[in-house]
């Protein structure tokens, strides 16, 4: 062989180290960005941009004494507990019935079941309000039929049930993963020692759902604590405040002058509580190896024949899907298309397109739609790029701080949206030079990206683990530096995961609103903030129209992403 290829002498310009350090520093700054000002504000007696501000602990003292934080904390915990219990019960039950039995219609009901995950809690809360609120369609119908109002959403229990049902899909998805991936041989073994099919399911497979239930349970508890929409829509009219609606009102609504110190202190406490819960979640999951059943060639578990009982199961499942999902979405669509919604007049006599025209004719409402799309597109692409590089550095490089970078990048799991929004809001006023981006969609994009780095990481890291590291090692040996290796070898192989990551980020950004409530200004409004604004004005028709538009765009996006990009979005 007579080749002229010379041994590689002088290295070509190798950007690897620059990329590693650059991304590590950028990520750290972005994650610390919203946290540092909140910590600072919690201990300052004046707004943190005020030069006269001095250190104090008085904010915490005042928080406890003056503001009656006790009742807020109590409400928050009760609300989160009910949310979690309801979500886990419904989610786990649905997972078993859909994942492991021959209940009729399990395929399409399984599809419908995850829909609440695609839209914001604001939309769902509004749907519930429209149908089950004090003058909701079904409420009025029940009252005219029975003479009593059987439910009241404006209580902690009512709020918890609504929040729980909207979070049940998360528990459902995780439990479904656990029950359908369980090794069939384990159940078969139980059958051979004399257990019936139900007994085998109950004694072998259901216990294996435990990690999924615990994991999603803590997640849902955190969601409950940091949820703004339901406490705001259902709690505020009844005077029930949770920590997020407290922060919202204190931070924004307080007409004259927001009390920065109190807000900072409450935000810091919320941050610590959520960080503690996320840590707890990690601690509970260690040593869960004994539940991991997917090893080697595990065969798929069989479905259990329910016999005539399957119609009972079908009725239960259908009622659940119909009354908590179909009706809720239908309520939004219906309310958007009629002048007013009442069971006393057939709704087809009241059809109108006015609400949609109101949205489309108003430049700022329309802008909120285009802003949402732009934020989600740009943010989705930029977020995917950032997350994939972070993941590659953390998992596939010799970068000394690779592990540390992963911890930093995953920290936003502990960052509630309202805190992220508040923190970036403070940061933008606090840090000189950032004034230029204040109130622009760029701040929203950055804040959303930071908040959802962990979501993207969760989409990419497992796919990366599937790519044997000898593929990158082979590239390194044959002369490629780290950056060339990841761009030429690893990224092309990761393509499906990149699409899934983008799709997930798009959906999360498109439905996000909590993070934006402190950050938007006229010009940078997004669908969620406009909905809140219209809601505050009592314009329920236009709110529904906007919600409908959001749902339709999301549905189109999900359809296209699944078909054209082959993205994996929730199963």
């Amino acid at each position: 062989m007579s080749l002229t290829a010379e041994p590689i002498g002088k290295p070509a310009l190798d950007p690897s180290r620059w990329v590693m350090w650059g991304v590590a520093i950028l990520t750290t700054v972005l994650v610390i960005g919203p946290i540092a000002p909140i910590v600072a504000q919690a201990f300052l007696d004046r707004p943190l941009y005020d030069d006269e501000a001095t250190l104090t602990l008085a904010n915490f003292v005042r928080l406890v004494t003056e503001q009656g934080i006790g009742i807020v904390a109590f409400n928050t915990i009760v609300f989160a507990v009910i949310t979690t219990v309801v979500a886990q019960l419904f989610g786990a039950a649905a997972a078993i019935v859909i994942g492991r039995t021959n209940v009729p219609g399990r395929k399409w009901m399984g599809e419908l079941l995850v829909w609440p995950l695609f839209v914001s809690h604001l939309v769902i809360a509004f749907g519930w309000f429209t149908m089950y609120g004090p003058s909701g369609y079904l409420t009025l119908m029940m009252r005219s039929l029975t003479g009593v109002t059987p439910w009241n959403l404006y209580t902690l229990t009512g709020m918890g049930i609504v929040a729980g049902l909207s979070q049940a899909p998360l528990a459902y998805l995780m439990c479904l993963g656990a029950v359908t991936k369980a090794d069939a041989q384990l159940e078969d073994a139980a059958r051979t020692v004399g257990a019936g099919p139900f007994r085998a399911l109950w004694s072998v497979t259901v216990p294996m759902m435990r990690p999924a239930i615990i994991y999603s349970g803590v997640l849902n508890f955190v969601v409950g604590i940091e949820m703004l929409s339901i406490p705001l829509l259902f709690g505020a009219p009844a005077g029930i405040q949770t920590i997020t609606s407290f922060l919202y009102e204190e931070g924004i609504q307080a007409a004259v002058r927001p009390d920065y110190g109190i807000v900072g202190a409450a935000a810091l406490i919320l941050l610590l509580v959520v960080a503690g819960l996320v840590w707890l979640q990690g601690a509970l999951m260690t040593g869960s190896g004994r539940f991991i059943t997917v090893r080697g060639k595990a065969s798929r578990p069989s479905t259990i024949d329910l016999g005539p009982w399957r119609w009972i199961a079908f009725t239960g499942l259908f009622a659940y899907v119909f009354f908590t999902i179909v009706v809720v979405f239908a309520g939004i669509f219906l309310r958007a298309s009629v002048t007013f919604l009442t069971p006393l007049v057939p709704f087809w006599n009241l059809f109108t397109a006015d609400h949609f025209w109101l949205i489309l004719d108003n430049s700022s409402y329309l802008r909120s739609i285009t802003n949402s799309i732009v934020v989600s597109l740009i943010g989705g692409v930029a977020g995917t790029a950032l997350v994939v590089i972070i993941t590659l550095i953390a998992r596939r490089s010799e970068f000394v701080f690779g592990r540390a970078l992963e911890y930093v990048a995953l920290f936003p799991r502990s960052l509630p949206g309202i805190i992220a929004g508040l923190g970036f809001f403070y940061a933008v006023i606090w840090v000189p030079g950032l004034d230029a981006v204040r109130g622009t969609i760029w701040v929203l994009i950055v804040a959303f990206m930071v908040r959802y780095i962990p979501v993207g990481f969760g989409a990419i890291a497992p796919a990366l683990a599937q790519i044997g590291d000898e593929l990158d090692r082979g590239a390194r040996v044959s002369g490629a530096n780290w950056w060339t290796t990841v761009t030429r070898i690893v990224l092309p192989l990761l393509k499906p995961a990149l699409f899934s990551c983008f799709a997930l980020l798009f959906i999360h950004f498109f439905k996000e609103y909590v993070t934006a409530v402190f950050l938007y200004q006229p010009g940078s409004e997004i669908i969620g903030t406009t909905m809140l604004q219209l809601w505050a004005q009592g314009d329920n028709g236009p709110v529904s129209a906007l919600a409908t538009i959001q749902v339709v765009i999301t549905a189109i996006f999900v359809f296209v992403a699944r078909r054209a990009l082959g993205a994996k979005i929730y199963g």
Partner: protein
Amino acid sequence: MADLVLENLTIAYGNVTAVRDVSLTIPKGEFLTLLGPSGCGKSTTLFAIAGLNHATSGRIALGERVFFDDRTGRSEPPERRNIGLVFQSYALWPHKTVADNLAFPLELRKVGRAERDRAIAEALDLVEMGAYARRYPFELSGGQQQRVALARALVYRPSLLLLDEPLSNLDAKLRERARVWLRELQERLNVTTIYVTHDQAEALAVSDRIAVMHNGTIRQLGTPTEIYEQPSDAFVADFIGSSNFLEGTVVERGASGSRVRLANGATIATSAAPGGPGEVLVAIRPERITLADGPGENTIPVTLGTGSYLGSVYQYEVSTPGLNFRIQTDRRVPQGDVFARIPPEATTLFLKSEAPVRNEEAAPVV
């Protein structure tokens, strides 16, 4: 003159020392095999040479070029070492065709297009895969993938070729043909080659020299004949060809040989005994023991037990009070009492204190 030199190479992961104080000099053009049971540190050593993992201490240099030196803190990244490496799993990039797999390292070296195409064709012809340039890796059989992997490692004319169990995913028959072919190719290209395997037959067949590794250290370095005929310790004797170990006591020491009383009471002549206590193990390969018609020098009466046919030879368990061992013959022998002769020159003596730990990974006697 470009010898590869490893000096006192030690590689530790936490408190696990995967490679311990390994020193080796591999002259240009040599085919050296790292042989040892799985987990003994062969791949770790190989990857340290390639720069894919970091040695804890020691020095690696190819001629004048220092790849790694812990004292100067120098560590060349893998992409600058110009090494060809074939992985156990081949590691062909699944999104690139065979030709593109080979083109990638050449592009990185800024080889011009015409020259590149010529080099790719040449390398593929070398491994008899010229017709498959447009295929994707998943469209190839295991043996073909292995050859493409080799072509990819050779196409940029590396100064060193490293092979990590490249044949272990092939079936037995293909493996034997591939190793002959591999050796011929290596001789033709005269490229310094380090070959990793746990298969002693493979190592004996292809290597110029073999380094037998155990628990991260080199236990013996020598030609295949030396390793086979004069194992330097009981582990090597056991691992290479699976020797019998007969317990005994040295009763007479000499410069060229000694006499050992075996556990059954018989005294036999053996090769020279090691210094130290008299309790020894006499290592003797089953195929070196012969059957004799009657009593004689170095011959002990034994009872022939069950036998098994191994394809080309018969192997029998034999016993005498206090001793059990195996013999191999080329014909079937009826069960019963016979005489076994142990040629003194075929024995190797080790101190009993270094009795080998029986290792499941050790290849069976063939």
